[in-house]
């Protein structure tokens, strides 16, 4: 399953870049969590994720955005895809969009605590950037709780 490693590493890269500055402002935050695509993800979607990974590593976020949107059109109920899109938005500093997408991912995630925790981190970062410190702390607490489970 080489592609999983590829994709995870690409989106980890995204995660690192986005969370660096925020982690200074939100002490105690561990952003090094990443999420692999759901087991049932189709090869059609994987092929797009691979292209999105390439676009991301090349810094072409606009192209990555289009490719990731194609994935959620094909599998609208795949929580990990909404998560990638949320992470990309965070990286693009489109914070309110990131929050909505992370919530959508959480809504579909069921019992994948790892994914849900990472989504709460995205929400925490975004809320902090939007000036909602209390909301950020609440979200971060949720992430932490899930992490400890």
């Amino acid at each position, binding site marked *: 399953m080489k592609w999983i490693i590829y994709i995870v590493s690409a989106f980890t890269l995204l995660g690192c870049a986005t969370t660096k500055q925020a982690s200074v402002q939100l002490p105690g935050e561990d952003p090094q969590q990443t999420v692999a695509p759901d087991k049932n993800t*189709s*090869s*059609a*979607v*994987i*092929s*797009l994720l691979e*292209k999105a990974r390439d*676009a991301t590593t090349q810094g072409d976020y*606009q*192209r990555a*955005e*289009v*490719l990731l*949107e*194609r994935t*959620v*059109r*094909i599998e*609208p109920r795949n929580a990990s895809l909404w998560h990638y*899109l949320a992470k990309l938005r965070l990286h693009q500093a489109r914070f*309110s*969009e990131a929050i*909505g*997408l992370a*919530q*959508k991912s959480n*809504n579909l995630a069921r019992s994948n605590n790892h994914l849900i925790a990472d989504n709460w981190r995205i929400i925490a970062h975004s809320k902090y950037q939007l000036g909602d410190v209390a909301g950020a702390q609440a979200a971060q607490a949720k992430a932490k709780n899930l992490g400890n489970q």
Partner: protein
Amino acid sequence: MARRPTRKRNPKKKASRRVNKARKPAKSSKTSKTKKTGSNKKSGKASKSRKAKQSDNSIVNFFKRIPWRRLILAGFLIFVAYTVYLDFVVRGQFEDKRWALPAQVYARPLELYEGLTLKANDFERELNLLNYRYAYDPTEAGMFQRYGNKFKIVTRPFTFWDVKESSQPIEVVFSGDQISSIKNTHNKKEIALLRLDPVLVGGIYPLKKEDRKLVSLNDVPELLPEILVAIEDRKFYDHYGIDPLAIARAFIANIRAGKSVQGGSTITQQLVKNFFLSNERTLWRKFNEVIMAVSLDFHYEKNDIIQAYINEIYLGQDGARAIHGFGLASEYYFAKPIHQLDLNQMATLVALIRGPSYYHPDKHPNRLLARRDRILDGLLEQKVISADLLTRTKALPINIVSNRQTGSRQHPAFLNLIKRQLRELYPESKLSSEGLRIFTTMNPVVQLDVEQRVKQRVEKLAKQRGLGKKLQSAVVIANSTSAEVIAMVGDRNPRFAGFNRALDASRPIGSLIKPVVYLAALEQSEKYNWASKIDDKSISLKARDESIWTPMNYDRQSHGSVTLITAMTKSYNQATVRLGLDVGFPAINKTYKNLGGPNDLPAYPAILLGAQNLTPFQVTQLYQTLAANGFRSPLRSIREVLDVDDQPLKRYPIKVKQSINSDLVNVINSGLIQVTKQGTARSLSNRLPADLHVAGKTGTTNDTRDSWFAGFTGSHVGVVWMGTDENLSTGLTGSSGALKLWGDIFTQINTTGLALEQTDGVDIQWVDPETGLLSKASCGNSLQLAFIDGTAPTESGECQGASTGSGIRDRFDRTVEWFKRIFR
């Protein structure tokens, strides 16, 4: 510059020519009468001056004092200035028209992958919409072959926003209604995902309604310019924009015939004439035309001019749409791209140049045939074609497609939606001239299906109710999660580009408001759940105008103490008003706004029964939020806009915002599913597969003026409105009107069922809708409903099929339901 040709060809007659220069070419279009009056004038002038000489010397002196040279010089300068002005005008037109590219509007591209649910027939329809040609052995891009469930296709290359897709030979195999494999037939490799080129669904044209499809000379069969030159302007490649000999020839022919039989206009002159679209035959206009023609010829290559001519010439009328140019005409008349035209078809189009209405293919087919044959004869005469080819072509009929208007794909309501979304960014002039490529969310197959269903159902209902042409309808269909609009119709005649009711008919929504009222109640979960009882008894309230308002139920009965679920599925008005008053307007308004309501709801009682006016599009937004589990997304019709060089200009991203708690949405949706199972929309359950759960609400306004249905599956949300522009009573309720059409559409399209989700915050239980007590799946009238965790009823009732209504129909339906449940 304008004088160049005459001077060169007639060096000896310079003086006399100069006098007549301006007028000479104009004579061609004039009859002999004009000529006579012209020469009379000249001799009259001469005799007059002679008389003046004899009678009065002072006049002679007066004339002598006039500075003739200066006057002539001034006249000459004015003429030069005017020529420069005309030159400027015609070059402007030429450049504008040359580059005035209407925006091209594309449907969503079809993405193919293993496991995709798609009917093989719908796939073939998509290929046909894309103008893929059937071929026994597909070898070129744009060809396909179908053998049962197996398609062989050579895809076309296409540049999208993200990736440039190249052409490849593929094989797509269907099994049932799913794609089972996609392979590249060249390297035999499996293809994970394949995106076809998108269907071109229309363009955005300038206000003059000129429609054209620009082609470059390279796309045009070589024979076409040859035919044009041979028939319209033999000396095209030699003259200077005008052809005095041809003019003279035409002039003589016209005198002989006693009427205007020949034009004598060059291709360049005809082009100028088309630029200014005026048919008046005045000397002055002819004068302008000549100067402009010469000026064009001076500035541009012959190939530029003939290419402009091929794109510009007027070739027909399709309602308000003027068909310009051979590129569009070949698609309009022959339903094929210009490069595929044969000699017969080219000769037919060239025949239309002289007068698309005089040679109208439907009204005057014999005239057109005769003109085509004359053109073919002319081609033999000019040695453009052989005698053999002439005979063979003449034997062919004129094969213009008969259902042209429906053949041209136009979706005015959808284009209207796109323009509105774009108008915020681009002015109309930019849309119609800059060659933007607009990638929309339209599903062309669904759009065509919806159009057809609207036409059929409205016609049928109008006939039944004696409503004639007055019954109208509007439909919006969108993907629920992405909120992408995939189809829209705004008139019972979907091709009619008039009033777009889907966007502009703001009508009272009636009971479509009820889910908003009930959702606001259910949000107070400590107080209300589906099993809670409310009073359905008569109520009188003070209306806004101080009169007394007494809402009635549709059946004019009161039903006493009923559960929320019964009041909702049976759409009881009295119970709803009582519930709404108890919940309060501020709470209802908050829910309404969270769902995407465009305004604040006014706080008066009739609002609780849907006195609020909304358009079908606005209603779709409200129900989209429910369909997407409480995640509101603004309805979108555009994904991307590229400029003429394929550079990205603007994206409309997927945005989601959680505006209603998902658990609550689950609760309300469980009730809305019951509306389609045993409530006012239960007729749907007989039409749809038993496992396809659908949620929705009917709406009927006072005196059956509006008939609504808003509903959603697990993947699509759709809203249908029926009524009249005159606000007449139609006799159609939500279920006897709009619901029928909604069912027509949703039995046709590919959609997935709505699943009730058992999440941590939700408790799903079987409940007796009459008593509100817990029940079992096996009990006759029990319903499966969602409750916010901890609020479900705890007491169990007796298992019995006690009837909530007394009608035989009700009992019959329940029995059917019961059987269905058992045998599922």
